[in-house]
């Protein structure tokens, strides 16, 4: 078989594959979210980098209305871990408003932050989001 014929065959195959299911546009603007998450898992101590990465995703996606699910919540959670309870609630609320599927979880998180805020005045911190080791079961899901 000539190389030209082989080339034609491959081209044909390529087009039939593209026709089958490849989508060129995405529902959301991700800005390399996967790589950022991986980096965070590899080095969880570098919170600042993760915060900046999440900010970047939101800044790029918001103008187009393409903020991916979970990003506001993720940002709120890091804010909570940093002790910024007001920002945490703000972003949990944003997630809850945008995604009705997240409402249960977000309202639990908001309730927890509110409790923490109360307890912080008495210098006590609740376990959700705190460091490993200090854990104490906070719901029925424990082994």
């Amino acid at each position: 078989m000539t190389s030209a014929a082989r080339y034609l065959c491959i081209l044909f195959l390529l087009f039939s594959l593209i026709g089958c299911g490849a989508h060129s546009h995405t529902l959301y603007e991700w800005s390399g979210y996967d790589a950022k998450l991986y980096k965070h898992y590899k080095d969880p101590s570098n919170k600042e980098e993760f915060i900046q990465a999440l900010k970047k995703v939101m800044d790029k996606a918001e103008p187009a209305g393409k903020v991916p699910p979970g990003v506001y919540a993720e940002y709120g959670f890091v804010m909570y871990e940093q002790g910024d309870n007001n920002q945490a609630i703000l972003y949990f609320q944003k997630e809850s408003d945008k995604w009705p599927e997240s409402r249960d979880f977000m309202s639990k998180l908001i309730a927890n932050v509110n409790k923490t805020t109360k307890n912080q005045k008495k210098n006590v911190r609740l376990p959700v989001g705190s460091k490993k080791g200090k854990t104490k079961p906070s719901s029925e899901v424990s082994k």
Partner: protein
Amino acid sequence: MRRIPLLLLLPALLTLFGCAHHKLELSKQEKFLSASPRSILIVPVVNKSIDVTAADYMLSTITIPLAERGYYVFPINAVKRVLEDDGLADSSLVHSAPTSKLASLFGADAVLYIIIEQWDAKYLLLTTQVTVAINYQIRDGKTGDVLWENEQKMVYSPQQQQSSGNAIADLIILLAQAAITKAAPNYIPLANQANAQALFKYPGPGIPFGPYANEQKNKQEKSN
């Protein structure tokens, strides 16, 4: 020269074969379609392989394909931390906990479990070959029934530009690589490719479109 028409027929035959195959696979999706989950909770990955980084790669890459498929995907990092606080720091503990309990903790319609069975890198002179076997399973958040399951086995080599001897395999690899972030480091393209192959072949062994993908499609149809 006689071989050329035959070879040109091959894609057409394959397409036909693909269609018949899809119809068969559709019946397997009935459970998923009748449950029609809107939200999927991704729990930490169980890693049975020798590569310690494999679980983090799978966990960080699975959100994008699932969300792009049209589902609400819970924030995996926040989920992981909350589970840790509930005494479920170990992923195998999470996997053995009742699905309904996990789902109700987050208000999720369904839960996705990923188990890495194999992730072996073989270093050759000019390239690296990674053999992976990954098991995906989605269970109903209320009943715990398996709604969908797929096992992805493949050999990945990042420098593969020429040919694996199979034109279709080469093209799938090319397409998957084009769909991922350009500057992604080492195993992210591999994880993306495995996820894409496992989730996106629909009709087929992949998962149906979720509510947000359907909305998008409806919008497009209206504007046309």
